[in-house]
């Protein structure tokens, strides 16, 4: 073993990142600017709505989708967050989650359809997903900076990488789980590719895809918090500042707020698939 030279994987990676930075920074900066506008716009918008209104609307949605208990929990939980003055940070975090999850759906669902329909795509994409899910987030948190700068954009991009795999996997699974007979039904009545997709496969895969979206939301929330390290602010930012200044109480408050948000989002989206 000793006479085999060490493989310089680290050096290669650096070279690749440098090369990408030099050649693609303009592109990534352009993407970054657009994204930043959208995310910050969304954050400002959420913060601008009166908190009382948000609290009531969320409670009503929770009532409709998840029942009385979750509605009550949302009401009390959000009021508590408002009371401990973490409202704006919470809205920032939620805006990032919404941005990341939307992008995950826009990119992930079509990719899931692709892997379900195309064996080659499946063979290529599955190992990449394994890689994305197991690679520690910190490893790609930092390289995101040269491409997208500091702040919300690299936070959302890294969240995307971290949270998208379940959507792709579960869309793929949901479509493959459509019973053979129903696929035959569609074909035997002369459905085109897109009719198969929109009239049979996606409607039947809906609960599975929604389960994927639920997972994606939870992963996004946890990642958005970690991404505070690269300047994403929000509740994660509070935690990060608390850690750096050894302010236990402040960190704990932000942590509780995160848990409250997580429970509300989870219970509401968990029940999306069950209605109808």
């Amino acid at each position, binding site marked *: 073993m000793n006479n085999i030279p060490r493989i310089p994987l680290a050096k290669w990676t650096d070279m690749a990142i440098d090369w990408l930075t030099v050649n693609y920074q303009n592109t990534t900066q352009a993407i970054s600017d657009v994204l930043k506008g959208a995310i910050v716009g969304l954050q400002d918008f959420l913060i601008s709505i009166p908190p009382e209104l948000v609290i009531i609307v969320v409670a009503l949605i929770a009532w409709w989708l998840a029942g009385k208990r979750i509605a009550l929990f949302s009401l009390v939980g959000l009021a508590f967050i408002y009371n401990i003055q973490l409202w704006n940070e919470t809205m920032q975090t939620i805006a990032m989650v919404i941005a990341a999850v939307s992008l995950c759906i826009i990119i992930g669902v079509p990719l899931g359809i692709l892997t379900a329909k195309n064996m080659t795509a499946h063979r290529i994409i599955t190992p990449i997903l394994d890689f994305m899910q197991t690679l520690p987030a910190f490893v790609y948190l930092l390289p995101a900076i040269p491409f997208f700068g500091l702040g919300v954009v690299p936070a959302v991009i890294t969240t995307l990488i971290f949270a998208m795999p379940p959507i792709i996997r579960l869309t793929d699974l949901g479509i493959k789980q459509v*019973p053979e*007979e*129903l696929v*035959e*039904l569609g*074909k*035997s*009545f*002369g*459905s*085109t590719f897109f*009719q198969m997709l929109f*009239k*049979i496969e996606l*409607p*039947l895969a*809906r609960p599975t895809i929604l389960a994927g979206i639920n997972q994606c939301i939870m992963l996004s929330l946890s990642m958005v918090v970690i991404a505070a390290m690269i300047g994403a602010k929000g509740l994660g930012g509070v935690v990060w500042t608390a850690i750096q200044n050894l302010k236990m109480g402040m960190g704990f408050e932000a942590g509780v707020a995160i848990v409250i948000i997580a429970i509300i989002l989870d219970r509401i989206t968990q029940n999306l698939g069950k209605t*109808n």
Partner: protein
Amino acid sequence: MEKLKVSNVTKIYGNNTDKAMEMVLKGEDNEQIRAKTKQVVGVREASFSVEEGESFVIMGLSGSGKSTLLRCINQLIKPTAGHIYLDGQDLTKVSSQELIEIRRKRMGMVFQRFALLPNRTILENVGYGLEVQGIARKVRTEQAKKALHMVGLKGWEDYYPHNLSGGMQQRVGIARALATNPDILLMDEPFSALDPLIRQDMQDELLEIQKKLHKTIIFITHDLDEALKIGDRIALMKDARIVQIGEPEDILLSPASDYVARFVENVNRSKALTASSVMVKPRSVVYPKDGPRAALRIMEVHGISSVFVVDRKGALIGYVRAEDAAEAAEKGQRELDGIIQNDVPTAFDDTPLSELLDVLAYTKVPVAVIDEEKILKGVLVRGSVIAGLAGERRDWDE
């Protein structure tokens, strides 16, 4: 008119079918082909043609290749070799666009496990075929309702599949296939998942519908009773091959192989057999002008206690009993008039034996089999009926 022709169709499952196809052509058996090439032969060299308006049943045990063959017809499965002609057009050669058109307008499929979309109402399920054709909602709804009505499900439009029993769900499946008004119905064991009683109702209903609509039906089953009831003709499959094609009675009475014979053994024969298949030739008849003595003589010769009387054209008049003939002979009567009995039990050629068993049980005279003009075609005697039920066919003499 020939509607559908399946010509030498072979389907081999696997990704390297050339070698296996060669072996099929050489006539090597499926097991050898599988051992040598790892390819599975689903259907081999199947040929048949179906007339417009005919109900053609494909029957065979599980794994014999029925579903594969059916799916070759609408190209859900592409045959490895061979051709499918619909109204003379080779479906293995049409473009995918044309194929979609053909599936939309000319073929309807009914599935074993109903294949209803659980997220759609009954009406939306029935309208599926029309919907993919892009037909306007209003027309679609109207046609779907009509189809639902035809299968007796009026009023169920807005329910969901899970609200319905199995039998009702399959009615929806049939309505869906009828809604696009296709020429051909492809039915893959449509009643296999149903309880026996419901199943018989559904069979009757299918026959009713068929009487009105005269579709060309390809119907798959592994149940011989069902095949006999539905099929104008039956194809029997074994080990991916069609081993016999014939009308129900051909299959029952002259099974082409031991395999078919064994298949046939279990069937309830009285349902399948008709009077004409077990009747014997009416050798001994007398004419009204024959005297009682002649009648007696004939009865003596054949060892029977009564004899049928027919007119010159062969139309049945009645029968004469031996004791009456003897009495009349003693009295010196010269003709049979006056002693001819008219209460003959009769049956038509196509009366099922099951309807005759009662009569056969109590009657003292044989049952006369006649046609519409009352011409005597044959005679049912207990011996030949029992033999028929037991599955033998001999030339019985009275």
